């Protein structure tokens, strides 16, 4: 267990700058899981995520002296992580992702739902801890293009505020909200289709 004083962001950073190996260990323990998980959700490839995680720690060592404490340490590190992943994506051909438009709700000309809306909320709440459903949602999420996926993962999966997500990604809050909304509409529609199919089987 790392010493309690290292739970304080500024103390941790200060000791990192002084080369304390205890601080390195505390930094690693606190963030490696999040960094890898976040990298996996953006890059969707284990070895890419591993390399991106390495990049993140290197950047943290190099830039430890520039951390001003204006934002929380985790949001600074998430930002470094997202940037490291996007740099890696830039070099690659984008994987084909489904078109989000296919999953947007459809309305009549006067703005009414074109088809009846099913209420499956109770059913899903019962299945909340169902492993299969969890995997299905994860698969749907992975199919989102990274533009939506990163926002969705930070805000709805990790539970950061829209302001924090905006700061990490360098987006405006309205842009974050709009992407998040579309990602949720997409997932909602996916779930609707998934549950409907399950019933007919």
């Amino acid at each position, binding site marked *: 267990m790392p010493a309690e004083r290292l739970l304080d962001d500024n103390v941790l950073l200060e000791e990192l700058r002084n080369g304390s190996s205890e601080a390195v260990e505390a930094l690693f323990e606190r963030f490696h899981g999040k960094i890898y998980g976040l990298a996996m959700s953006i890059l969707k490839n284990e070895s890419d995520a591993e390399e991106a995680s*390495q990049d993140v720690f290197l950047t943290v060592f190099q830039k430890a002296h520039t951390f001003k404490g204006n934002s929380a340490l985790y949001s600074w590190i998430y930002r470094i992580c997202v940037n490291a992943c996007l740099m890696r994506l830039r070099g690659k051909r984008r994987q084909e992702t489904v078109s989000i438009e296919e999953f947007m709700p459809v309305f009549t000309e006067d703005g009414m739902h074109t088809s009846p809306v099913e209420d499956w909320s109770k059913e899903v709440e019962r299945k909340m801890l169902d492993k299969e459903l969890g995997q299905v949602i994860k698969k749907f999420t992975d199919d989102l293009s990274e533009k939506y996926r990163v926002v969705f993962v930070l805000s709805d999966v990790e539970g950061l505020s829209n302001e924090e997500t905006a700061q990490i990604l360098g987006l405006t809050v309205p842009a974050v909200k709009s992407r998040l909304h579309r990602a949720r509409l997409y997932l909602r529609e996916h779930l609707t289709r998934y549950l409907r199919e399950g019933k007919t089987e």
Partner: protein
Amino acid sequence: MNCKELVYLLGDYLDGSMEEQLRTDLDDHLVMCDSCTKFLKTYDTTKLICRQIRLTEIPEEFRERLNSFVIQKSREHHKGLEKYQKMAAEEQKREVENLLRAFREQRLAPSLSLLFDTHRDRCETCGGFLRYLNGGGEPKTCPEEIEEHFAEFLDALPPGEEPYLS
């Protein structure tokens, strides 16, 4: 408000950032529209269930590899810094040695001389040492604290001004 508008506004409605009038309009629509009520419920549940998703866990093998990588790199990084700090310390030592030599040989530029004179009377740490020098003493080494102060004299010199008389 129609269904399309309502769906567009759901995010704001649920996170509480919607203004009161719009919220009332939306509530009015919900009361009479079964489809939208269902849509709202399933949208909200989607949000809720996504909080249950866990990020991919790092495989133990990766974890160990990443851990050794991080430890190794942090050492290298710190060694690099130490090397730089050592170089800077040696550089400062040389500069102060030059300064003291010039002091003994009375080759200090006027502004530096003045700094030395005022410092001798004001600084308890360096006062004795400076008087010893003034008395013609030739110390073998300069104590670290005093070296720090003398190094600052050089930094305090106006840009472009030569520290020593030729």
